[in-house]
């Protein structure tokens, strides 16, 4: 077997033109909105770096072990030499590598634990079965401004997240930005994340929390500071009176059938039991990643929420009349 290996290795190296190509193809498939292999922030980058060291190291160890397994076949039993080999590769090598690795691993991801600076943006993220509340508070203002299933961040700034849970243990995970952090009922876990590239990333609950755990996702939208400020200012404003009569009808219906028991539309109804809908029309998904946004899916969600995401806290409003359903959906879609 060893001779074959020796004969083939130079061939593989000689044909090295295919290696970069193969590497490119492999790496391209790693990019994406929800990939720890495509880091967009310092914390994710350090985890990614550790990952690469581990992949290469583990490959080298596997190769070494495979070669060492051939040793007994290749030479006669020489107990002194074997003992020496065992000492070097079986004891000394692992001891040195692991000793070096432990402090390095402990330091990885320390970016998420940096202390808060006074003017830092701070966001309360609360996990519930099966959605996320994102509540923005700035030290200059006392009022909290909430949105749901969508985390908007200014690019290149460390942002402090206070993670809470309303019910069971969830875990906040946006792989492109940082590692997982658990959200534990009755406790506040803190993490600092930073996104260095504007763009849209996807986050996901990473601690099995129940029937719809897989449909508990959120978008992370990273914006330049000016756009972020404009968005936040818009979010604080009460929703203005809808211009069209059909939208007004939708708004009236929204209030009269009791959507405000759970939802907030700033300036119209106020409840923190369910997701804040002040900007639901601008959201990329409906139902925490269940459906893409848009009026069609909003209508589908209102009429059959329990069918689309069984076990979520919203009932299916399947006793509305056609025009009522449409008016509600148009109204919610207009909230941007």
């Amino acid at each position, binding site marked *: 077997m060893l001779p074959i290996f020796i004969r083939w290795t130079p061939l593989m190296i000689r044909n090295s033109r295919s290696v970069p190509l193969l590497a490119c193809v492999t790496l391209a498939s790693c990019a994406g909105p929800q990939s720890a292999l495509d880091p967009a922030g310092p914390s994710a980058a350090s985890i990614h770096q550790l990952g690469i060291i581990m992949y290469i190291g583990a490959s080298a160890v596997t190769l070494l072990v495979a070669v060492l397994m051939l040793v007994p076949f290749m030479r006669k039993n020489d107990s002194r030499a074997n003992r020496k080999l065992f000492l070097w590769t079986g004891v000394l090598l692992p001891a040195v590598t692991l000793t070096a690795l432990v402090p390095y691993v402990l330091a990885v991801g320390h970016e998420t634990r940096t202390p808060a600076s006074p003017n830092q943006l701070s966001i309360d993220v609360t996990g519930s079965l099966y959605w996320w509340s994102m509540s923005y508070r700035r030290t200059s203002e006392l009022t909290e401004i909430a949105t749901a299933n969508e985390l908007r961040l200014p690019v290149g700034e460390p942002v402090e997240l206070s993670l809470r849970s309303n019910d069971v243990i969830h875990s906040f995970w946006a792989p492109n930005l940082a590692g997982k952090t658990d959200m534990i009922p009755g406790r506040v876990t803190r993490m600092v994340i930073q996104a260095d590239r504007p763009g849209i990333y996807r986050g996901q609950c990473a601690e099995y929390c129940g029937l719809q755990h897989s449909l508990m996702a959120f978008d992370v939208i990273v914006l330049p500071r000016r756009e972020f400020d404009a968005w936040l200012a818009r979010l604080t404003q009460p929703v203005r009176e809808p211009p069209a009569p059909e939208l007004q009808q939708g708004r009236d219906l929204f209030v009269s059938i009791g959507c405000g028991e759970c939802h907030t539309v700033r300036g119209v109804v106020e409840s923190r039991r369910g997701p804040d809908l002040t900007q639901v029309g601008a959201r990329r998904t409906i139902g925490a990643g269940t*459906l893409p946004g848009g009026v*069609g899916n909003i209508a589908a969600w209102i009429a059959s929420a329990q069918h*689309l995401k069984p076990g979520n806290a919203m009932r299916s409003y399947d006793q509305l009349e056609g025009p009522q359903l449409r008016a509600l959906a148009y109204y919610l879609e207009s909230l941007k």
Partner: protein
Amino acid sequence: MCVRFNLSNDPGMSKENLVMSRASLALIVFGCFTFIAGCRVPPTSSIPDRQVPEGDPIRGRAIVASGAHGCTGCHAIPGIRARSGVVGPPLGGMAQRSFIAGQLPNTPNVLVEFLQDPPALVPRTGMPDVRVSLEEARDIAAYLYTLDAPHDP
């Protein structure tokens, strides 16, 4: 080589074998197949006018499958990977269905118009205007007319 059949229980006839040539056997087999083939329900989608000349069913399928307009949120559509919607009628069999929304004749022009603004044609419908363009409506209609009726179990 021949095939022999003993067709009779009559002792007098027992020694007598009926010999059939390969040709006649083939004829019987052919007849059987023809008979069985005749049991198939003739295709009903031979309605010549349910064609959308400018529509591309492949593009239409892509539009529907993308979920951007939310078709699958309300409708069960065979062959599209999504949780089948239960809000509106299933769209399997649109190629044979007589009515759109139970009210309008299912012709290509009406379907294309309906897709662009359902409440304009059916005021009591629950289907919102999902802002489908004329081109998209043609593609989607062409795709819907590829959906044959689901087979009976």
